[in-house]
Structure formats: C-alpha cells, structure tokens
C-alpha cells in the first residue's frame, strides 16, 4: 500500500490575534486530507491552551503543551503520532470496506497485526510536512531552540526508508503579509537550514492565515504532481 502522509504542525507560544479562528482553517485542511497538529510553548504564560487543543481536534491531529526546553522531543513525538494517526485511519477505512469492522471493533489481541503493519508503513511511507513557526515578538527568545528542534527533526527523518519533504512557514511576515514561506517543500536539509538562519521574530500572531497558506501549498504540490503524471 502506498500512502502519502500530509501534515501541518503549528508551533506557537501565544494566542492568535489577527484573522479568523485557526481551528476553522485546521478543519478545512483536514477535510482536504492534511492532518493539523499543534505544539504550544507555555514559558511566558500567555499561551491559549484551548486554542492549541482546538487546532488539533479540528485538524485531526495531536497536540502537546510544553516548555521550550522540551521542543526537540515534542516535535519528533508529534510528527510521529500524527503520522501514526493517518496510517491508522487509512487502515481503519480499508478494514471497514473489507470486513465491515473498525480496528477498535476487533479483539484487542488481533489488533497486534495491524499495529505491526502500521509500524512497517511508518518507516516506508512518504511524508510531507509543513512546519508553521510563530515569529511574533514573544518568540524571539525561543527561536534558537525552535530552530534547533527543526534541524533535529530533519536529521531524524533522514533515517527512515520513505521520503520526507518539509516546508517551513513563518507567521507573521515582517512586511505586513500575514505569513511567509521561509522554505518551500524540499527534502534537502540544507535548504531549510539556509532558510532559518536569518529568522527574526516580531509582530502579530496570524495563525489562521498561516494554516491557510500551508494548505494551499499542499494543493499546488498535488496539482504539479498530477500535471507530471
């Protein structure tokens, strides 16, 4: 079975304050087959935990509330769990078609084989992941840790047999636009490293727009692939 795992991970330390409700954008993305997860950094105490939870629950993803020291572990765990969810849901739907039962409907011991299959797919599936990095003023001090976490994630994903592509979006964009593409989808760690070298934080938190922008990137990708096919 070939599965392309599409996911968005929102990283923020505050609440969104420009544009629509981020959970709505997450819901639309999920409807298009992109799973949206969120990581909330609580260091300064102005994080909206509800918003973080809502993004993940509308986006079909997972969330994690952390201190910035824990970012490396969290980013890797969230990426992993979100990919597991995609594979789980795909197999769940297949099973339903085949035998009219969901995975939860099986006897727990029988599920072992499904989990084994998920683990195998996790290693060989292609993953396309957009990381949305909050660049509002309060993130300035945490930016270095966030950047380290992203670089760390890239090198982890390299170990897998499947292909991984990442894209990095920052919000807000200093020049008034709501969000900017720091690095479009690439499988080269170098591209991302260059992109994040000169990041600066400052401004509002337009989370909604960032998710919208990321969703549209997945769509243009899909079209260009179809165009080739």
């Amino acid at each position, binding site marked *: 079975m070939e599965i392309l795992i599409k996911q968005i991970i929102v990283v923020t330390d505050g609440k969104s304050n420009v544009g629509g409700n981020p959970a709505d954008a997450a819901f639309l993305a999920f409807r298009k087959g992109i799973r949206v997860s969120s990581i909330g950094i609580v260091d300064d105490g102005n994080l909206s935990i509800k918003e973080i939870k809502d993004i993940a629950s509308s986006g079909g993803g997972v969330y994690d509330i952390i201190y910035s*020291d*824990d970012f*490396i*572990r969290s980013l*890797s*765990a969230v990426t*992993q769990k979100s990919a*597991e969810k995609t594979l*789980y849901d795909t197999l769940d739907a297949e099973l339903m078609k085949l035998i009219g039962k969901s*995975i*939860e409907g099986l*006897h*727990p*011991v029988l*599920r*072992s084989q*499904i*989990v*084994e299959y*998920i*683990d195998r797919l996790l*290693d060989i599936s292609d993953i396309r992941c957009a990381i949305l990095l909050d660049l509002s003023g309060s993130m300035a001090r945490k930016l270095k*840790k966030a950047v380290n976490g992203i670089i*760390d994630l890239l*090198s*982890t*994903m*390299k*170990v*897998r047999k499947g292909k991984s592509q990442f894209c990095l979006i920052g919000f807000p964009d200093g020049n008034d636009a709501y969000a900017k593409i720091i690095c479009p989808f690439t499988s080269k760690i170098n591209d991302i490293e260059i992109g994040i070298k000169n990041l600066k934080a400052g401004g509002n938190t337009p989370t909604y727009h960032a998710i919208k922008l990321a969703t549209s990137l997945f769509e243009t990708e899909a079209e260009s692939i179809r165009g080739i096919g």
Partner: protein
Amino acid sequence: MLENGYVLTGIHNGRKYVVEKKIGNGGVADVYLVHDDKNLKYALKISEDLISITREYKMLTSLKNCDFAPRVFELDDALLYNKMYHYIVLEYIDGYSLDRLIKSGIDLESASYIFVEILDILLRLKRLGIFYTDLKPSNVMIDEVKKRIVLIDYGSTSAKDDTVKEFTPEFDRASWKVGLRKADSGYLSFEAGMLFVCLVMGKTFRHDYHTIGEVLKQSKSKLGKFYIVIIKALNGTYDINKLYVNFKNGCFSEKASMYLNYMLFIVGMIFVILMILAV
C-alpha cells in the same frame, strides 16, 4: 484519572480489577496498582493510545520467558467517561526505580555491578532483534522481592536501524549531536554510558547546557577506572558488546590496551630516534 477503589471491567475478557493506587505516569499512559478477585496484585497500564498499548503488549508477549521484563497477562479495553481506553495487565514489580537510587547516591562498585546487569539485558534484547532505545532511570526497576533488575516500558523499542520513536533527550545520542536517532549498537552504548554517568554523579546532565566534553570532565574523578570506557561509550559509535566486556572485566582490557598503545608509541619513537642517530 481512576479513583482508588474503582472497579475496572474489561470489555472483551470481562475480568475485573480493583484500583489500589496510581503508581506512575509517563508520556502516554498511566500506571495503577490493582488487584483481582483472588487479591493478586498487578500493575495496570492504561492509555487512550491504542497503537502504543498494543505495541507494548505484542512486545511483552514475545518476551514471556525473559526474567528481565514484567510478565504480561492481558490486553483489553475499558470504557471510561464515554471514552475508549486500552490497557495491559502486568506483573507488579515490588521495588523501586533507579531514580530513587540516583537521588540517594550509590558507590562506584555497586553502580558498576547494577550496570553490568543492565548491559546484559540490553544485549539479550539485541540478540532477539529488539533495541531498547528509551533507557533512562525511571524505566529501570529493582525488584526487591525477586532480587533482579527489570526493564519496564516496552512501548517504544525499535528494530535494528529503525528510527528511534520515543526518546528522552538526556539519553539520546542525536540530542547530544554525536550521531543519528537510529537504533544501532552505538545508540545503545551511548544511552547506557549516559545512564552510568547519572548513577555515579547522582544527577542527569542536559544536552542544552553541557557538551559531552564537559560531562566527561566533571565526572572524570568519580568515574575512576571506568573513565576511558565511558569516553568511548559517549562518542556515539562504540560497540555495546565491547562496553559489556570491559565493564564485566572491571575495564582491565581497556587499560591494558591503553598501556600497550603507549608502549608501542614509545618503542616507535626510540626506533625513529635511533634511525636519525644512525644516519
């Protein structure tokens, strides 16, 4: 989540367990001490995460005959507060985890004694194709009743050369930037080496405040004769078999090989000097 005295009933197997108290929680699961209708005690590990609980069950059933892993008795579901939970029932380990030992402090000889046993377990698992990649103090328990070391938590073991799924940065080779997050012999040596440093130093080191060099420098005197082999373990590529053999022999062979190297070097130098003089 579960109150003391709560009676949990399995949906599929129908067995009942009475909750005595909560004994632990980690990333994904909560662990409770429970007893059944015959008043036998168990540890019950419960989570909403079907994949990770099923994974652990599968792993533990394949380790049924190993005395270093808790026995697993069943896997079942329970409906709690309108949500589906999944749980495994485990042999209850009556003892304490290495966390406590690290807090109370331990001398070098006892630390190395415990450590050799841990390395032995890691190697036995590796021979079965299982890489235990989340080694840390809270996952190592000392069974006071059966007098043995038990590695708990098999939710995130890896197969050879797989990506390490769950990790703890303090014991993770990649976080310390001395290698990839990939299940291999060097990864195991690194996490084990770091665990030994923790045991001896009575604290854990954080990768974002220290470099490996600083960790080694600070722990040099306390590591004593194990210093050299720990340097090797923390370089990220050391063979865990060698780590085991060296510890088992009290690091004799490491020292011997170091002296041998010195000797060879000195002999070589003398030779070179003689050559120069001869010319």
